[in-house]
C-alpha cells in the first residue's frame, strides 16, 4: 500500500492506474475495494489528508479542520439557511458520521424500482448486496457496556409516551461507547471505510493520493480517461502542484455536492437537465433538554436509539451527544447566558428531529468555483418540524427535564409544556427555524432513461463514457434513514459491474 501526500508529488506529477476513484468515503471506498479485489490496480484520490485511528481525539479545534470539508463552514441557502457538514479526509464522511447502518424502508425501494424501471433497484434486487455490505462493516447492535445514560433516557421516554422505538444497528465491532463518532473513532470500533473497505483495497495493491483536489476530468475523444487536479500545500493551503492520473475508468464519489460540481464543469447531463437537481438533505432540528440530574451523555455511544413512532409521517427522533466544542457552535446565546447553559453540560440530553424531505433543491456552480446549494423548506416540512419539536420536547418534560432549548430564533427556551403550546402561535415564518444537516443526496440520479436521469444503472454518466458516479448523488429519492449502507451497496454494485464490463472488453 502506498499513501502519498503533498510533499511526495513533483511540480507536475503523472500517474497511471486501471481505475481512478475520486473520494474515499462510503461510495469511493466500496467501489474501489470491489475493483481492487477483482485484481484491478485502483488509485484513490482524496482531497483530505490521511489520519489514522490513533490520531483521533476529542478536541474540536484539532479535528474539525482536518476531518471536515471547509472546516464545516458550509451552508445551504434558501428558505431557511441550513448549515451542512461533509467529511474531507481518507475515509470521508464515514469517519465523522454517527455510524447508523440502516437499509432504506421497503416503500422507498419499491419507489426506486418503479422510477428506474429495474427490479435490481428493488427490495429483492438489492438484498444480496445489502447483506454483503452489512457483513463488511459489521452492522450490529450495541453491547450493554457501550450504551450511555442519554440513550437510556430516550428509551425510557419512548416507553412512557407509548411510542415505538428501535435500537440502532451500527457499523461497529466491539464498540465501547467512546462517543467521539463525530471527531473520528479513537478505538477503531466504528467501521468507517478507513478501517473496513480501504484496508481491503490496500491489501490488494490499491494506492491512495491524498491532499489532491480534483479540478477536472481528463477527456479524450469524448471518453473520460483520467483526472487532473492540484495538490494542496498543508502549510499554506495553496494548490500548488499539478497531479494527473490516467486510467481506463474514472469513478467520481465526492458526495452529493462536489460530484455534480465536478461534472458541471464539463457541461454534462444536458439531455436530462437533472445534473445538480433533485438535491435532498434530510434536514434536522436540535432539541436540547436539561435534566435536574447528571446524565454525562458523553459517556456512552451516540445514537443507540431511534424513535420511529412517526416514521410514516416523515419524522424520526434520536439522541446525538456531541463534544462541547461542537455544541457551542450552535448555541443561541453568547456571554453569560451561554455559560449558564453550557455549565449544565453534564445534565444535558442532545436530541434531534429528522424530517424526510418533501421537496428537493439544487447544486450549481458559481463563477468562482464555489458550490451554490439551494433548498427551500416546504410548508409541509415546516409543519412537520413544529410537530416533531413539540412532541420531542414534551417527551423530555414528561421525563422531568427542567428546560428545553428549542430550534427557533424567536423562541429558544421552554420551561414547561405550556411554553410548547406557543409554538404554533409564534412559529409562522420558516426563517425562524434553526436547522442543520448531514445527509446530502440525489444530485446525479440513477435511471434507465437518459432523458430523466444523469447516470445509467451501472453508474456510468450517460453522456461521458468511462466516467462513473458512486455516491449518494445516485439516489432517485430521499431514503428517510441514514444513507451510508445504501451508498456502499450501490457503489459495490457499480464496482462489480465495471469489473465485469472490463473483463468482457
Amino acid at each position, binding site marked *: 500500500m502506498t499513501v502519498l501526500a503533498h510533499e511526495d508529488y513533483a511540480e507536475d506529477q503523472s500517474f497511471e492506474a486501471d481505475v481512478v476513484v475520486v473520494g474515499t468515503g462510503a461510495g469511493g471506498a466500496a467501489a474501489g475495494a470491489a475493483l481492487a479485489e477483482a485484481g484491478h490496480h485502483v488509485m484513490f484520490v482524496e482531497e483530505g489528508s490521511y489520519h489514522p485511528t490513533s490520531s483521533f481525539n476529542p478536541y474540536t479545534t484539532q479535528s474539525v479542520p482536518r476531518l471536515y470539508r471547509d472546516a464545516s463552514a458550509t451552508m445551504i441557502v434558501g428558505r431557511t439557511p441550513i448549515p451542512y457538514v461533509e467529511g474531507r479526509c481518507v475515509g470521508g464522511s464515514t469517519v465523522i458520521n454517527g455510524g447508523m447502518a440502516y437499509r432504506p424502508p421497503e416503500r422507498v425501494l419499491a419507489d426506486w424500482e418503479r422510477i428506474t424501471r429495474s427490479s435490481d433497484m428493488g427490495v429483492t434486487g438489492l438484498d444480496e448486496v445489502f447483506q454483503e455490505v452489512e457483513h463488511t462493516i459489521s452492522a450490529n447492535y450495541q453491547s450493554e457496556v457501550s450504551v450511555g445514560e442519554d440513550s437510556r433516557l430516550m428509551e425510557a421516554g419512548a416507553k412512557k409516551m407509548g411510542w415505538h422505538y428501535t435500537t440502532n444497528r451500527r457499523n461497529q465491532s466491539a464498540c465501547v461507547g*467512546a462517543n467521539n463518532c463525530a471527531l473520528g473513532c479513537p478505538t477503531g470500533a466504528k467501521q468507517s471505510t478507513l478501517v473496513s473497505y480501504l484496508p481491503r483495497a490496500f491489501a490488494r495493491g490499491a494506492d491512495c493520493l491524498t491532499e489532491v483536489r480534483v479540478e*477536472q476530468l481528463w477527456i479524450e475523444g469524448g471518453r473520460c480517461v483520467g483526472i487532473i487536479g492540484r495538490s494542496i500545500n498543508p502549510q499554506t493551503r495553496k494548490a500548488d502542484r499539478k497531479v494527473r492520473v490516467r486510467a481506463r475508468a474514472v469513478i467520481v464519489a465526492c458526495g452529493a455536492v462536489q460530484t455534480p460540481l465536478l461534472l458541471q464543469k464539463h457541461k454534462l447531463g444536458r439531455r436530462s437537465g437533472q445534473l445538480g437537481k433533485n438535491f435532498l438533505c434530510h434536514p434536522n432540528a436540535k432539541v436540547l433538554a436539561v435534566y435536574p440530574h447528571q446524565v454525562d451523555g458523553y459517556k456512552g455511544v451516540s445514537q443507540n436509539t431511534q424513535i420511529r413512532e412517526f416514521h410514516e409521517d416523515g419524522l424520526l427522533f434520536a439522541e446525538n451527544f456531541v463534544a462541547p466544542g461542537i455544541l457551542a457552535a450552535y448555541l443561541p446565546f453568547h*456571554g453569560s447566558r*451561554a455559560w449558564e447553559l453550557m455549565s449544565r453540560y453534564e445534565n444535558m440530553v442532545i436530541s434531534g428531529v429528522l424530517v424526510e424531505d418533501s421537496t428537493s433543491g439544487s447544486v450549481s456552480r458559481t463563477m468562482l468555483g464555489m458550490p451554490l446549494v439551494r433548498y427551500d423548506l416546504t410548508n409541509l416540512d415546516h409543519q412537520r418540524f413544529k410537530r416533531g419539536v413539540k412532541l420531542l420536547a414534551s417527551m423530555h418534560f414528561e421525563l422531568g427535564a427542567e428546560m428545553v432549548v428549542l430550534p427557533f430564533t424567536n423562541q429558544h427556551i421552554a420551561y414547561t409544556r405550556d411554553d410548547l403550546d406557543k409554538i404554533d402561535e409564534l412559529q409562522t415564518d420558516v426563517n425562524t427555524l434553526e436547522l442543520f444537516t448531514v445527509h446530502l443526496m440525489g444530485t446525479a440520479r440513477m435511471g434507465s432513461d437518459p432523458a430523466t436521469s444523469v447516470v445509467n444503472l451501472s453508474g456510468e454518466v450517460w453522456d461521458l463514457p468511462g466516467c462513473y458516479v458512486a455516491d449518494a448523488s445516485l439516489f432517485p429519492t430521499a431514503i428517510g434513514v441514514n444513507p451510508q449502507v445504501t451508498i456502499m451497496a450501490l457503489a459495490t454494485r457499480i464496482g462489480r459491474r465495471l469489473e465485469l464490463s472490463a473483463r468482457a472488453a
Partner: protein
Amino acid sequence: MTAKPSKHEPLPEPKRKLPMASQTPALARHPQDGWTFADPYPMSERYVRMFHAIITILCPPPPAPLTEDMVTRIERHVRGFMMYMHPLAARGLWLSFILLDWAPRLLFMSTKRVSQMERSQADRVLARFASSRWMPIRLLVVGIRGSVLSAYFDTDEVHQRLNYKPIAFMRQRIELRHDLLSESALAAQ
C-alpha cells in the same frame, strides 16, 4: 478538453510512513499522521486587537474562565479554521467581523464600534443583532459567535469547569476495548 497523455511513472517512495489503523492506545496526535496545521489567516495587528475585543465580549465573563492566553488561543484557532474554508467563505467571515464591529455605527445605534464598547453595552447590542428579524444581520452574529464559542468551549480550562473529562474517559474505553478483544481472542482459541 484535452491534455497531453501522461508518461507512466512508478509511484514515488512516500517521504513518511503512514500506518493504517494501528491499535496504539495513545490519544495524542499520531507523530506520523502527517498533519500540519496551516498558518493562521493573515490579519494586521490592528484587526487582531479588534478581534480580541470581540472574542472577549462573546466569551462568558467571570466566574467562567477567560485569560489573555485563552483569548489568543481562540483567535489563533479561528484564524486557523479560516484557512480550511473556501477562500470566499473565509473572506466573507473576515468581512463579517469588520461589519459586526462597525454595525452599531452603521445602523445609528451608537457612536462606538462593538470592540470599543463596555461589555454590558456590547452584550445588549449583539443579543439584539442575534434576534434581529433581518436574516443577514442575524447570520452576521451566528457565524462569528459559533466559531468563537466553539473554540472557547474546546479549551482544557473550560472542560475542567464543565466536569467534562474526555481524555481520561477515552483512555479507559480504549483499554476496555483492548481487554474485550483480548478476551474474545482467548475464547476463540
